[in-house]
């Protein structure tokens, strides 16, 4: 079974801090994703990576950046955290190719910005 591991289940940070969320997958998947999930808004794509060092902006990239230096690891960076970035963050991975491959999700990081 594919395992997607997010480094923290719960995280509390302060406004203006630089925040790193880490995600690791163990099945050699080409694609990796970062979503945020908010009540009433569903899942929204922040960034997508289809290969090492390759990335695409999703629907809501503002205030975020990503890093993929190794195939198994995809990091989400909040450059200067703000309270409106309080949310549940979900990482996912899938095999390469188009969108016809199922995604495998981590258990999420619930981030609170004070």
């Amino acid at each position, binding site marked *: 079974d594919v395992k997607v591991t997010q480094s923290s289940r719960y995280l509390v940070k302060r406004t203006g801090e630089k925040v790193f969320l880490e995600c690791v997958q163990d099945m050699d998947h080409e694609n990796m994703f970062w979503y945020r999930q908010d009540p009433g808004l569903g899942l929204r794509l922040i960034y997508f990576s289809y290969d090492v060092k390759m990335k695409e902006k999703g629907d809501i990239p503002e205030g975020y950046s990503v890093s993929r230096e190794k195939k198994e690891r995809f990091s989400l960076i909040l450059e200067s955290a703000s309270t409106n970035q309080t949310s549940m963050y979900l990482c996912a991975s899938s095999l390469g190719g*188009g*969108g016809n491959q199922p995604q495998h999700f981590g258990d999420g990081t619930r981030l609170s910005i004070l």
Partner: protein
Amino acid sequence: AQSVTQLDSHVSVSEGTPVLLRCNYSSSYSPSLFWYVQHPNKGLQLLLKYTSAATLVKGINGFEAEFKKSETSFHLTKPSAHMSDAAEYFCVVSGGRSSASKIIFGSGTRLSIRP
């Protein structure tokens, strides 16, 4: 362009009765369609997927879904609900060969099970 609409934000059924969660989609391509389940404080887990093979798709935990092209629907069903089915369910569409970044999630349906 693609879109997906889950027609009910909340469905409540009694244990042992059938479950129907409704999903309509639109896609310019032959779509790939998925249902995922999310239990509280967990990530999403794949229930089943349709990728242009059989129109009736069987998934895990007794769930199945039928792809109806004429109705642009992909409703999720289960003959008999169990208490452990209480969760949030997401219908997802992608344009098959389009980029994986074009995957569209529905807004979710919360399923409650009455004892």
